[in-house]
């Protein structure tokens, strides 16, 4: 199948190219649209500019389209440039677990595809300096053909996180909900002559995660798969909220 690949670490990412090689070996046709720069943390940001530049780079057998924009821009433009069956965002250096997925551009890109009714996967590795990239790509490509493709739907996107382990040490797959934990966003303020400067610095404490959540299982050597809503709405709450608001009517 034709697969649009993107990420938020930028077009130079080795993981992006490794995955392209793996997908091709498994008989797929990867098309790569990735940001020209690192856009981590940009969530589902869409750069609404009237003109956007895309640089064309050659890397081995592959053409890489480097978009001067966000991951979401890459998905919007890539899916319009050519027809694709699936969008894969990643592999991201570093996990996208717990509540952090809200700001994640890796997940944001996958969500953009889902909004256009194209099945999508957000793929991340639980390490900023992965040592087992090759193994992870191999296992992921096999998983894709053996089961994941069947599980793809227009109803949700899949958020997949890999532990940074050799193939033999991966303990299995867990379909789980997300931890409530995640990045701690520390803000520091400095004052100088010209004013104040604020700096948001994320720090990831080494947390174990609540039992049964993505964070917990990935730390225990499992690949985690979480179905992620394709929009932001909590449909289960609509009726409840209606009733709550009824109570206040006429007061």
């Amino acid at each position, binding site marked *: 199948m034709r697969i649009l690949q993107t990420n938020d670490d930028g077009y130079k990412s080795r993981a992006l190219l490794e995955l392209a090689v793996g997908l091709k070996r498994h008989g797929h046709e990867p098309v790569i649209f990735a940001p020209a720069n690192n856009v981590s*943390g*940009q*969530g*589902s*940001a*869409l750069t*609404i500019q*009237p*003109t*956007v*530049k*895309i640089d064309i780079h050659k890397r081995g057998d592959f053409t890489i*389209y480097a978009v001067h924009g966000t991951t*979401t821009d890459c998905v*919007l433009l890539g899916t*319009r440039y050519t027809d694709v069956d699936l969008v894969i965002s990643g592999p991201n250096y570093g996990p996208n677990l717990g*509540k952090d*997925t*809200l*700001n994640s551009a890796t997940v944001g890109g996958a*969500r*953009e595809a889902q*909004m256009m009714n194209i099945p999508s996967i957000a793929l991340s590795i639980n390490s900023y300096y992965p040592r087992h990239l090759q193994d992870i790509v191999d296992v992921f490509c096999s998983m894709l053909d053996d*089961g*994941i493709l069947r*599980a793809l739907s227009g*109803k*949700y996107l899949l*958020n997949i996180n890999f532990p940074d382990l050799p193939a033999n040490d991966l303990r299995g*797959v*867990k*379909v789980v*909900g*997300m931890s409530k934990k995640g990045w701690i*966003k520390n*803000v520091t*303020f400095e004052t100088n002559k010209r*004013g*104040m*400067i*604020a*700096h*948001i610095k994320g720090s990831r404490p080494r947390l174990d995660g609540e039992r049964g959540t993505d964070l917990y299982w990935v730390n225990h050597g499992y690949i985690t798969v*979480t*179905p*992620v*809503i394709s*929009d*932001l*709405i*909590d*449909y289960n*709450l*609509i009726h409840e*909220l*209606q009733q*709550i*608001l009824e109570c*206040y009517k006429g*007061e």
Partner: protein
Amino acid sequence: MKILLTNDDGYKAEGLNTLAKVLRSHGHEVFVFSTSRDASGYGNALTITHKLRMKQKQTKWGHPVFVLEQATTADCVVIGAQFCNRDIDLVISGINYGPNIGKDINHSATVGGAREALMIGKPGIAVSINSFKPKHMYEIAELFATELEHTYSHILTTQYALNINYPDWTPKRIRGTKVTTASKLGWENQIIFRTIKNYIEVSIKGVRPRLEGEPDTDWYWLRKGWVTITPIGATDVDYTYLEELRQLLGC
């Protein structure tokens, strides 16, 4: 209440400042943190790659605004809350010029601000008016402030944010309030790709179709003169499909 107010239209925006003024006149303590620029479309994007300059500016509306250079609304919420030592009861994002309805709420920085509030453990409300050149901004701000006192302040939660859209009508003519789901409609992009040697020049033109909206959606009711409220979830997980996915993947 102590309210952190933000939005994505820039610190001079009438919607932001009118609401600040009206909330203050209703006895609230309001801290305004705004982006210097128009940050529409940036969703939940958070600036984690560099530092942000912050300045306090006095406005003609009589209140000061903390302006964050080239920031997003999510930045304003994270930085603003920290600056206030987290001593706030509620985050409000708005009043936005133009509606935040349909599938585009995914990219909405107004909604993104309210959603970021949930992540830092505060209730969030996004408020928008269904016109890019509103005629009833002041009356709508008054109406919202009244409804905040009578209704919304009693149901504040960090489980979900409220996305509220007002018609640009005089309050007397407004027909009521509907808790609804979001339409699947939204901006359509006309995209043209032009290949020039080693790069592609892309022109994007957004058009918003004038449509009725599917029955019983925000788009539909808002156009008919109703205030619409949609619950925005605090989690990305689609728990509805967790079990189904387990079965599909056989784990």
